[in-house]
């Protein structure tokens, strides 16, 4: 990579950090955009549930069916619900939900704010006595930060249900036995780090989507580029946060 590219990369990283800092400096100050926040929660959370649920269901089912032969080979087929449960709750559930979320919500925020930027709607808001950063950015970042953990929990539940169906394709396990096996093997230290990191995933998706859209340039071409780069960058950040999270949980011996 050339020096100029590195410089641009650091410039953008600095800009994005300032953008995130601006979010923290503004989110608790009045005027509070409560109605817009709830509207965004509905759009970002409720409307993403079918997609997160479907992918979670498929992941649970497929993971179970693919693990089964290996566990049979080792003679621990009975541990299938426990193993799938831990894998889904600790890693697969949060990461898959976050990646789906980045694809759906990150791109839509990037495109929406980008299009508002190039058609002067953001300027029009400012002229109409509105702080556009609070109205557009703070509400969306808060909504993504708070809605993703909820989606992760619901996605995990749906995914485990998919796993239950997967277990019953080749065998017979009662609903009660399946859930008992899953929860008996899950501890607080499995659930808490996964839950906490999903807040960070949501924050990353929100900040990157808003940053890319809010700083969109070059007309409609820029809008497409904002949406695209919002997905790419937030997906990479999800993996980086996941890497950091696993190190932190290791330090605190939560693994």
């Amino acid at each position, binding site marked *: 990579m050339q020096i100029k590219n590195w410089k641009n990369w650091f410039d953008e990283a600095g800009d994005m950090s300032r953008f995130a800092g601006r979010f923290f400096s503004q989110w608790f100050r009045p005027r509070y955009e409560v109605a817009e926040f709830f509207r965004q929660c509905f759009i970002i959370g409720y409307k993403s549930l079918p997609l997160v649920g479907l992918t979670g269901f498929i992941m649970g089912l497929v993971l179970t069916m693919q693990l089964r032969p290996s566990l049979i080979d080792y003679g621990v087929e009975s541990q299938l619900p426990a193993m799938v449960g831990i894998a889904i709750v600790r890693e697969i559930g949060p990461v898959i939900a976050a990646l789906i979320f980045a694809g759906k919500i990150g791109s839509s925020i990037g495109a929406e704010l980008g*299009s*508002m930027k190039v*058609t*002067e*709607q953001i*300027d*029009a*808001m*400012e*002229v*109409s*006595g*509105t*702080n556009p950063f609070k109205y557009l950015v703070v509400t969306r970042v808060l909504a993504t930060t708070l809605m993703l953990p909820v989606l992760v929990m619901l996605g995990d539940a749906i995914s485990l249900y998919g796993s239950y169906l997967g277990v019953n394709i080749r065998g017979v396990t009662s609903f009660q036995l399946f859930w008992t096996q899953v929860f008996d093997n899950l501890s607080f230290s499995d659930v808490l780090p996964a839950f906490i990191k999903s807040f960070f995933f949501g924050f990353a998706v929100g900040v990157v989507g808003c940053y890319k859209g809010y700083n969109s340039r070059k007309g409609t071409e820029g809008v497409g580029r904002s949406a695209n780069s919002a997905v790419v960058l937030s997906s990479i950040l999800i993996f980086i946060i996941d890497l950091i999270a696993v190190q932190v949980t290791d330090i605190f011996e939560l693994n």
Partner: protein
Amino acid sequence: METAFIIPVKPVATGTKKEEVIRIQGLYKSFGTNQVLIDFNLQLFAGENVVVLGKSGSGKSVLIKCIIGLLQPDQGLVQVFGKNIPDLSHEELDKIRMKVGFLFQSNALYDSMTVKENLEFPLRRHSIRMEQQEVDELVLNALDDVGLAHTINLMPAELSGGMRKRIALARTLILRPDIILYDEPTTGLDPITGKEIIELMVDIQKKYKSSSLIISHDMNCVRMAADRVVMLIDGKCYVQGSYDELKRSADPRVKEYFE
């Protein structure tokens, strides 16, 4: 080299002097190394229609955005109702913006809102306490002013370019501003629709006795709407006067607009 044909703003006799609503003095604005406005001066008086005429990229939109506080000037005075815009706090700026309407070049209608919600937006956001009935009445009056009351529940995407411009104008009018800033009001419209929009602007100015600052490069707009024309060339107020005065100018840089 031919000197510019400068027509100063006529001094008005004491007692009949009109209120100065906008005063710009020594305005400089640059973007990087690109100096857009250089020692630009302008006055707008109450009830007056001034058109700022200039080529694309000459800095007309930058000027209007400095007036409304969307851009910070590098140097100079930008006074609106006697208050220097760059010195104002957010709250003070919002109070000024309630008295200044801005019609954006791209209309800037909110895509996710209906026409009604678009018009209600400035009323709700400027913390004006109103009953829903009063809000509805203002929305309907503004839509009646632009002849589009029937579009109240439509989305912006369902409207034609001319209709969108009219709705944007209705949104600009809803707070009954004392000054209306128009950024290229006829750009992107066919000549007939453009003429209708200019007529509408003139009618509105007569009805509400507001002052208008119109940014344009459309000579029809200049001819029909301008009490005074300010030509923005090389970042400066190159010449100003009435349409007829400028039309008679021998200066080649002025003449090229009228040919």
